[in-house]
């Protein structure tokens, strides 16, 4: 049981990671980080529900709640930054943001 959930969480995490690396739209990139959070949330809850030792507890859910709080903060700040970037550069292309690159 635990294995199934953990594997699903891992797949979601890796898909999010691949998406973050591969996609060039800033908004999609941040969506992909949210997807990584999803994978972790499922993992945390599964670890709390099916612990390797001891009785199941709610600690996993509590951690997941904190994770949601962090994700919300991240989304708020990231979207604010994206809005700001778009307003300045008129594009959401991550490859276009090369101002700090050493070339």
């Amino acid at each position, binding site marked *: 049981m635990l294995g199934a959930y953990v594997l699903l969480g891992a797949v979601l995490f890796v898909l999010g990671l691949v998406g973050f690396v*591969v996609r060039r*739209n800033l908004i999609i990139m941040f969506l992909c980080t949210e997807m990584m959070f999803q994978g972790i949330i499922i993992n945390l809850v599964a670890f709390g529900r099916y612990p390797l030792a001891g009785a199941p507890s*709610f600690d996993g859910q509590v951690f997941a709640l904190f994770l949601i709080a*962090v994700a919300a903060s991240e989304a708020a700040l990231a979207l604010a*930054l994206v809005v700001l970037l778009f307003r300045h550069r008129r594009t959401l292309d991550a490859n276009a943001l090369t101002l700090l690159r050493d070339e």
Partner: protein
Amino acid sequence: MAGLLTIILALGAVGLFLALPGGQARAVRAGQIGLAASGVGLLAATLGWLFPWPGANFFAGCALVALFAAVRVITHPRPVYSALYFVLLILAAAALLVQMQAEFLAAALVIVYAGAILVTYVFVIMLAQQARPLVHDIRSHEPLLGCLAGFLLLWSIAVRLFAAPVPPAVPAADLPAAGTVAAVGTSLLTTYVIAMQLAGLLLLAALVGAIAIARRRPLRDPLLEGEE
């Protein structure tokens, strides 16, 4: 077992590579087929052979929806659809959480993610919408390396996972029956009360930061200035 797992995951990686935006239409179709085969294979490996358990059907359904939605999020060339598939992913994840008796968390996930965060994403995507698809939506950045890295990471996790001992099955009744909301709330406000305060502080900081970043400074009105 490890060999079979490698084949399944490699199939998925190749499928993902073909299905990512930027490829030929036929290759995308083939990639989608590969991805579907890989996902089903992964589920079969997880459910049938290694861990047969009650509730596997529900898990399989939700997991398939979740995987499908997740793949579409990163392969769909149009951002609005990506965001909507992410909503689908949230709903599937919430269903899985309900299966793990985390009802409160499921509700919180839907309210916070689908109800607030994703709506904001959709909002921003719509505002930044352009008339025709843009190059950064229909071209990928280093898809080969990305898929390879993902494959290696997932492969190492999965092989380790399948090699690990199967944990003892815990019957559902082992969780306190008082209701998950009460239990989670008690845990949150006793053991983790400081962490909760910190989370609140973090949210406040994010709120202030977001407003400070995105605020538009009012322009001086030249007409008014001229008169003064």
